[in-house]
């Protein structure tokens, strides 16, 4: 007898059926999936172009089933701008880490928002440089130990962590700015809603949209995955509050 089973869960169409290279407990896989789910739900996979950064997610183009660029370090917003200005009908997004977006690419990050460029940025903040092996990031917390802040980040020497969501929300061209986390189920649900809103903001032509995603990096934090998700909650969220910092005027 043939049993008809209802399909209640499947891999998003926009996510390729391949293994990722990410470490156990890494947040990138979750963020990738959320982006893919949103592309499916908005039915925009075939009109979307992504820009991968330099960093752990440089191989994003192996995981998402969309047209993609691999950009120079920090330059993804400029690359996305070039693409969007040629094809305004496309949906263009950048996916960037904290080194890419909050350090080497701050000029591009600030100006893409100031111009109100109709693109979306998914900004992964894990407070560390993952791909190069755990060096200090612009978002590394005060006191946090990394391979280039071995005694912990000392602000007198290394300055203070940068809050990109708050910074960009001051710019008139930024239409939707939010900070989310992917360290537990509740936060992941909120994260997906924010990512969807960000893409919708672009599709409606309202301006620049950016979602900062607090993400865990157990390997370079020298923690177990369980310790890492707790660390996001206990250390990162107090310094990087979650929520929407700017929403489009039309609501």
């Amino acid at each position: 007898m043939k049993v008809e089973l209802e399909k209640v869960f499947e891999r998003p169409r926009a996510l390729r059926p391949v293994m990722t290279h990410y470490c156990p407990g890494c947040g990138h896989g979750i963020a990738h999936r959320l982006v893919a789910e949103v592309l499916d739900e908005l039915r925009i996979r075939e009109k979307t172009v992504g820009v991968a950064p330099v960093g752990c997610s440089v191989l994003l183009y192996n995981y998402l089933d969309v047209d993609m660029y691999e950009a120079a370090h920090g330059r993804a917003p400029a690359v996305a701008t070039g693409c969007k200005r040629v094809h305004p009908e496309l949906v263009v997004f950048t996916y960037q880490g904290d080194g890419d977006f909050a350090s080497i690419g701050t000029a591009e990050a600030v100006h893409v928002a100031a111009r109100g460029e109709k693109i979306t940025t998914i900004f992964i903040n894990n407070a560390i440089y993952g791909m190069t092996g755990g060096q200090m990031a612009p978002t590394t917390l005060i006191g946090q130990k990394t391979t280039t802040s071995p005694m912990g980040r000392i602000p007198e020497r290394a300055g203070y962590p940068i809050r990109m969501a708050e910074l960009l929300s001051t710019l008139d061209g930024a239409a939707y700015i939010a900070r989310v986390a992917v360290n537990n189920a509740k936060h992941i649900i909120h994260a997906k809603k924010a990512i969807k809103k960000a893409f919708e903001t672009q599709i409606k032509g309202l301006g620049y949209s950016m979602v900062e995603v607090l993400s865990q990096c157990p390997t370079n934090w020298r923690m177990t995955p369980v310790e890492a998700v707790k660390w996001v909650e206990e250390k990162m969220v107090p310094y990087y509050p979650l929520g929407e910092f700017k929403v489009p005027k039309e609501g």
Partner: protein
Amino acid sequence: MEKKFMTGNEAIAESAIQAGCRHFFGYPITPQSEIPEYMSKRLPEVGGIYLQAESEVAAINMLFGAAGAGARVMTSSSSPGISLMQEGISYMVGAQLPCVIVNIMRGGPGLGGIQPSQSDYFQATKGGGHGDYHLLVLAPHTVQEAVSLTMEAFDLADKYRNPVLVLGDGYIGQMMEPVEFKEATSSKLPPKEWTLTGAKGRPPNLVKSLYLDPEALEKHNLEINRKIQEMIAKEVRVETYQTDDAEVIIAAYGTVARIAKTAIKVLREKGVKVGMVRPITVFPFPYDTFRKMADRVGKFLVVEMSLGQMVEDVRLGSCGKANIRFYGRTGGVVPSYDEIVAETEKFVKEVC
């Protein structure tokens, strides 16, 4: 078509539009700011996009994005700004993206000055950015030539899927001359099937320069090199000027070649048999022309607005057969024709 009186900068900008360029990304810098100014006014008239980038770094990456999306794109700058673009240029070569870059050279190093110079020759012809690559480099010596070479540059960029550099100097950019715009001839170019337009009804396309597997990167670099070798075989352009009976040859490009033509007229009136070899492409360099010339002419005078950057290529080309002398001014000082006359006369009298 009627002739128009234009500066080199304006003429370069207009010829880009005539060649089908509808997207320009740039950042102002003297002595080429008339190019972005002209584009900001003219591109909207033809349905194009002018965007002032936040830096030259961003501008070249906007070209990366626009070229990857299939558009004919251009940027322009001057020496310090071109230095800032080198990273992006290397990435564009790596990702095999066509674009046209205009460098209206000024004096360096550092912030240098704002007067004409040719001191970016090494950067333009030997690489500039990191990695195994070359740009195709076109060096006009008149405003009219700047027009035709800029228009051709777009076809060459598309043909080779490689950035093409138009290498002028402050004089070429600022000088006004009557110019004529001939209709763009559409050469047969391969379709751009690799562009990013959304993966509708096809597998996704990818524009990248990253090849983590060394064997794959070697293969990729060999493909880039194959294109460079094809440029060397097919794209060399050179003007030989009054060389038939010449006993001394001036080697010069760009504005200096223009001045040298006046010097040659004066020298010939004085009975000095002098001619000129003028590279129009400085990469690929016309080594063969110099090699053949060295078989019958013993003296080459290289004149540049630098401290002698092209002189190395002339020496390579002449295969040690000619006596090579260099005369140059630098820092934005432009050699006058009488300086070239005096230097040539001195050289001719010498027993080598």
